[in-house]
């Protein structure tokens, strides 16, 4: 094997805190060969982003420092190189793209200028030459009309196009290495597939080496050559992807793989079908629901159909998944069901009563439904302990006498698998998964007929996601909970829900038993969604025939 392009040896980064020095990266050693794609996986806090920041010496805090080890780029040491050399390395040798293109692009600077900025500085071109070069790069990353789009601002583009712009900025100075830090996490699956394909195209054309940070083993399996698994600041396992995925040697790698919610094949065990009583009243009965939002200014009014003629029934004890890309109207539908957004036309019956009929019906609805939110941390009051929060809900509900409240709080924690000591904890001393469990306990405190969970695992690490999904599954079976589970992650919905509803542009395009919908999609849009999910098996290529999926993705992007 020839000398690696990038050699990291025993790299150690420490945090100088008030309580002493703590190692955040502990003797990390990794190699990256010319033209190789290295996948870096691990949970949040495992140090994967920090590792990449350390390579170019952009540490996120002044309290962090590189305490030892070496980083050699084509034989040149970077850890003690002068800042003037690092300026040339950043962008010129090592380009970076980030998870959230919206926050990383300058909102008040034209897209093209942000791409040209690096070209002007690194290659010393004048304004006109840099503009021409930047326009060329924009065309390479898939801008259809780069000469005109050069002058647009980031907010005028969709998330996928913003990520393309960021890739253009990173590639503008022809780096040898591209570090992509969760580049598709904020994007819809079909857009994610496009961005991944773009990265692979560029790598093939330019012979680029790529370090791809992700929490999604499916992405790694699809696009990487080698995988490095990180945990607690250490690399626990490195290897060629097929070998590593097929025979992981480290226990942590095994649990990561086990947690990955791949779409199972036909042999998946059928979920327990609940017998429906003939004549049972549906918990939620939605009929020809329209929700329109007014948009535009004082003089030019128009309206957007967020929900466009949706008819849906949820029977008691059912677990229904709603999937669709951002903007498909799934959250609006949930908000309408909870009476949180005005309905333009159609009817929503909760337990047989029309919730649009008046305040009384709405009050009943609010007493008997609960919601679990996407951001577990921000959905909890930071000043209250979990015990206070649960007790407050129980007191307001008034369903049980006050003497029983402390005991009930304990029971609720048992239900969601949190120890009793959490009664006295506040959200800031809890992890994301624990916060989400507390949020579910709060939803259960209402003793609800219906729980709506809106993207409630999207912000969590995969292993935690798997735990929360398992918790929901257990609760649904034991308590015959009625659950509407909204998610953009098809695999999770398939694992949890008996029935699934696919939404696209405010309308339901397909609906049916989860197994049927995902293994034999009838609608082209569902097929595109399913095909865009990166499979953990490297031999199931992502979007083999890309035509159908991209057609839909383009429609969605515009």
């Amino acid at each position, binding site marked *: 094997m020839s000398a690696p392009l990038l050699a990291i040896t025993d790299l150690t980064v420490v945090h100088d805190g008030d309580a002493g020095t703590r190692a955040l990266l502990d003797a990390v050693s990794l190699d990256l060969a010319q033209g190789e794609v290295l996948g870096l996986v691990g949970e949040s806090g495992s140090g994967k982003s920090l590792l990449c920041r350390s390579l170019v010496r*952009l540490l996120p805090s002044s309290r962090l420092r590189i305490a030892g080890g070496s980083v050699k780029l084509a034989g040149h040491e970077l850890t003690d190189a002068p800042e003037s050399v690092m*300026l040339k390395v950043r*962008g010129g040798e090592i*380009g970076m793209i980030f998870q959230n293109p919206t*926050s990383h692009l*300058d*909102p*008040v600077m034209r897209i093209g200028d942000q791409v040209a900025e690096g070209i002007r*500085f690194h290659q010393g071109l004048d304004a006109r030459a840099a503009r021409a070069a930047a326009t060329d790069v924009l065309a390479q990353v898939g801008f259809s009309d780069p000469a005109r789009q050069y002058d647009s601002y980031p907010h005028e583009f969709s998330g996928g196009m913003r990520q393309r712009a960021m890739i253009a900025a*990173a590639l503008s100075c022809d780096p040898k290495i591209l570090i992509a830090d969760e580049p598709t996490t904020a994007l819809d699956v079909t857009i994610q597939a496009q961005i991944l394909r773009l990265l692979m195209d560029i790598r093939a054309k330019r012979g680029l080496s790529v370090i791809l940070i992700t929490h999604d083993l499916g992405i790694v399996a699809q696009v990487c050559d080698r995988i490095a698994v990180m945990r607690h600041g250490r690399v626990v396992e490195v290897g060629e992807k097929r070998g590593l995925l097929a025979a992981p040697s480290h226990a942590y790698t095994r649990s990561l793989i086990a947690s990955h919610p791949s779409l199972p094949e036909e042999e998946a065990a059928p979920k327990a079908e609940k017998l429906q009583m003939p004549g049972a009243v549906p918990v939620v009965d939605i009929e020809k629901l329209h929700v329109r939002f007014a948009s535009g200014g004082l003089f030019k009014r128009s309206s957007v159909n967020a929900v466009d003629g949706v008819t849906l029934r949820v029977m008691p004890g059912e677990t229904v998944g709603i999937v669709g890309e951002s903007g498909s109207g799934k959250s609006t539908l949930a908000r309408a069901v909870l009476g949180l957004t005005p309905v333009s036309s159609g009817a929503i019956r909760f337990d047989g009563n029309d919730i649009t009929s008046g305040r009384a019906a709405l009050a009943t609805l609010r007493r008997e439904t609960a919601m679990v939110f996407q951001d577990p941390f921000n959905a909890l009051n930071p000043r209250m302990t979990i015990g206070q929060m649960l007790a407050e809900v129980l007191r307001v509900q008034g369903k049980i006498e006050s003497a029983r409240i402390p005991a009930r709080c304990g029971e609720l924690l048992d239900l969601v698998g949190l120890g009793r000591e959490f009664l006295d904890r506040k959200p800031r001393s809890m992890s994301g998964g624990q916060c989400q469990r507390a949020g579910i306990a709060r939803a259960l405190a209402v003793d609800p007929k219906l729980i709506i969970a809106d993207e409630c695992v999207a912000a969590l690490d995969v292993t935690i996601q798997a735990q929360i999904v398992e918790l929901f599954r257990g609760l649904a079976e034991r308590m015959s909970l009625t659950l509407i589970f909204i998610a953009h992650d098809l695999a999770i919905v398939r694992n949890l829900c008996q029935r699934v509803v696919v939404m696209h542009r405010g309308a339901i395009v397909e609906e049916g038993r989860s197994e049927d919908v995902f293994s034999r999609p009838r609608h082209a849009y569902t097929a595109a969604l399913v095909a865009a999910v990166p499979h953990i098996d490297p031999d199931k290529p992502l979007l083999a025939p890309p035509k159908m999926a991209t057609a839909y993705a383009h429609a969605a992007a515009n």
Partner: protein
Amino acid sequence: MHRYKFVLYRPLQFLPVLFGISIITFILVRLIPGDPARVLLGTRATPEAIARIREQYGLDEPFLVQYLYFLRNLADGEMGRSILYKIDVLKLILTRIEPTLMLVLCSVVLSVLIAVPVAAVAARNQGRFADQAIRVISTFGIGFPPFWLGLMLIILFSVKLDIFPVSGYGNTLPEKLTHLFLPSLTISLSLSTVLARSLRAAMVEALRSDVATAARARGMPESIVFWRHVLPNSLVPTVNLLAVNIGWLIGGTVVVETVFALPGMGQLLVRAIFSRDYMVVQGVAMVFACATVLINFLADIATVALDPRVKL
């Protein structure tokens, strides 16, 4: 360019605002205790003379009628006659508007010239000596009242060093600017500290932002990161703060104009209040109110120009 369309139709919204301002200033001015006719004629005036003056100026009419007269005159471009100066209030104000306008303009320019570099130095040296020193000095700047600060500046620069004139207003532009320097500095010393604090906070935030990280990851040196990414992203909140402060400043010129004997609107207002010159007080109050509306309009235009995301 459609983002600037509000420049055309926003002035329509000013009409009801101005109408409201006219009602409020009209009522407020008449709530001032004391009788202008008595002030004009002195304490020994006969009741007949007072009645004649009251009739001549319409002061004997009911409130509503007085207000209607006021509106009709306003439509003709008149704001009534000053009791003290015996000329039309609008003409009177026009003779006094220039020094005040110049004072506000110079103060704002000077404040921005002080605030931007000061905030930049503080933000880029966050927590270090320069930042702490600027924080201490700016606390003094906010703490000292302008009337005292003005007097101290006069003693230092005019009496001891003899660089700038003590008071008054010149005839030619360079003369005017030299006369305006100390009053503007007095105002700027407090205004710039308010601006610098807001700007520093926004810059500290922007220096840590993802935008700055991304620019550094492209290999941009810290100076480009700062001037091309951090500064433009920090300006918007400060522009709005500046607009609020200019509105407050226009009223605040009263003190500074008095200290430096500038023949501006502030001075006119003080004299008018003491002599119960209703029409002048009312006119000046209206001009101040209109100026505030106009400044906020300009701030909106500036915000749209600075931030391409903003639609009004």
